[in-house]
């Protein structure tokens, strides 16, 4: 077990280097002027300015040279400076990532808990009204385009009903609590600032719901189908025949087995949402890493692109590793594929 873990962990840096290289190359060979974020349109034809900017940002060197320089700095932990924000990419990520993590964690909490519940109801009461309503709710979550439903919900609950505050992580007038983790909720608790906590939670509610609703969709379906799968297996029939009460059958046997593939999906969903919450971040003006990635991609800000890609890659690889380990723990009979 330990050897397996170690092997997996040791591979990660190499995978990350591979991802970084691909990301770097992709952003270099794409069409588009890499200077577009550095020089305004008006100055494009001014040779002196173009030369100066190119030298300052190292864009006057050849591609292989730039690659080597970039990679050497990368392994030392220097992710370079972003073209768009003019700050070190690490600083940008350190500022933006917690915002997304807070949103994604909240969304996962909502999505998974509702997904488990609804999925179990749907499996237990298959093809009844309960099943259908549960699945309909879940379905809507994964079928509605977020950029449509988000706007509508924002309009209804914030503008019309006033139940939730508007966009952003906090009211614009408010000052964020002292940064410790970057999570406004946790930082507020650490600072003992209850009003700040409530305000941060208030702003978190709607975007977490909108994002989490799509997670509900995935989890419900998965739990339902895995449980149905499990409920059809021999050992369940045996358990029932032995007179086990239904809820034991559901939970100890069916749900347990449904959990395993679900954990994998949950892991991947979490990793995916970190950069995939782009549209939610756009609608709710949430300054997270997804929107950072979009503006980086649009301006061909390659240090930022590679930086965000690495973040996404780390998230994915960690999720991969953790779920595989959890999988192995949950069912030791499963051979760990080399």
């Amino acid at each position, binding site marked *: 077990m330990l050897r397996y873990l170690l092997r997996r962990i040791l591979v990660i840096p190499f*995978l990350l280097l591979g991802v970084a290289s691909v*990301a770097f190359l992709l952003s270099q060979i794409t069409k588009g002027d890499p200077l577009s974020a550095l020089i305004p349109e008006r100055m494009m034809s001014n040779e002196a300015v173009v030369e100066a900017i190119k030298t300052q940002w190292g864009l006057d060197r050849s591609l292989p040279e730039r690659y080597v320089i970039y990679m050497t700095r990368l392994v030392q932990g220097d992710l370079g400076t972003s073209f768009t924000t003019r700050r070190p990419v690490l600083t940008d990520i350190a500022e933006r990532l917690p915002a997304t993590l807070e949103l994604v964690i909240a969304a996962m909490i909502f999505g998974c808990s509702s997904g488990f519940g609804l999925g179990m109801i749907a499996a237990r009461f298959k093809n009844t009204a309960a099943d259908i309503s549960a699945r309909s709710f879940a379905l809507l979550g994964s*079928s509605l385009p977020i950029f*449509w439903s988000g706007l509508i919900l924002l309009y209804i609950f914030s503008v019309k009903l006033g139940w939730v505050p508007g966009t952003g992580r906090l009211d614009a007038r408010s000052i964020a609590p002292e940064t410790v983790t970057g999570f406004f909720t946790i930082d507020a608790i650490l600072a003992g600032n209850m009003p700040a906590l409530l305000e941060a939670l208030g702003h978190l509610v709607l975007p977490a719901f909108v994002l989490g609703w799509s997670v509900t969709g995935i989890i419900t379906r998965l739990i339902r189908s895995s449980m149905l799968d499990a409920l*059809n297996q021999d050992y369940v029939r045996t358990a029932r025949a032995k007179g086990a009460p239904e809820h034991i059958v559901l939970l100890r046997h069916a749900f347990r087995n449904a959990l395993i593939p679900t954990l994998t999906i949950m892991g991947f969903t979490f990793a995916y949402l970190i950069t995939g919450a782009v549209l939610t971040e756009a609608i709710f003006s949430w300054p997270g890493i997804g929107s950072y990635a979009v503006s980086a991609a649009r301006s061909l800000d390659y240090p930022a692109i590679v930086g*965000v*890609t690495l973040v996404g890659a780390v998230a994915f690889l960690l999720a991969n590793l953790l779920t595989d380990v959890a999988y192995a723990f949950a069912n030791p009979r499963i051979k760990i594929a080399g």
Partner: protein
Amino acid sequence: MSVTEQLSNTNPAERSSARGPWPGLRLPKRLAWVRKLPATAVIGSIVILFWLICAMTVTWWGLPDPLAMVARRLQAPSLAHWLGTDALGRDVLARTLHGAASSIPIAVGVVAVSVFIGSTLGALAGYFGGWIDGLVMRSADITLSFPPILLAMTIAAALGPGLTNASIAMVVVWWPIYARLMRAQVLEVREREHVEAAVAGGAGRLRVLIVHIMPLCWTPTLVNATMDFGQVVLLAASLSFIGLGAVPPSPEWGAMISEGATKFYNWWIAFGPGMAILTVVVSCSFIGDGLRDVFDSRES
């Protein structure tokens, strides 16, 4: 009983092979499983069928030109224009229906190609193992590690605007999922007795893979693919929403919602395409679930 025998059988009790939602329907034996599809799956199939037919034939439906200004701009829904008009005075309903001709074929293409590429690679990786497995899975890992939106955006930005390029980007993003799916299934199935029997019987490895293993492995892929069909429509719409998919004035659903978002108070502009996407994705889910249920009962 052979099919012809069954069909000509006049004994009502023996005619239908299983009671399902459609007891009166006569079906050949091979399609008997259709009976087990829940009503939702059938409704879903009808809706998807509608969209497929729409995508293929809408140009002959006599609708107003989706690209031309036909009335005053930003008109609310009325009898003349059931979903009103958009910012350029174009009929929203006509554009929504024509949008199927953009979105549906793309979804079919992307899913089909992703499934084909992914399943092939996954099956090879799962069966042969070794360096093939390593190569395919590492490529899949690296691709999956990429934030999908970022990957799709970068590729689409690299190749230029347009739905074909967006489709290529989506296939690159999607194939690893099917590779993993197929690989996992192959890994499980290849341990089964009848496969060992075939190998012992001297069948070539490729033949064993194609004839004995893969036919048993396509269930999760099929279910996944039907549901992914809807997800591809969503992703294509998202790409268009951020400006990297369809080229205006093409009436692609995502681009229409993007326009609708900027004219939010003219709700009908986004309503048409939004509902279209919703019906497609929901129907796909129903079909997927229904198929799942059928395979469930088949295996038991």
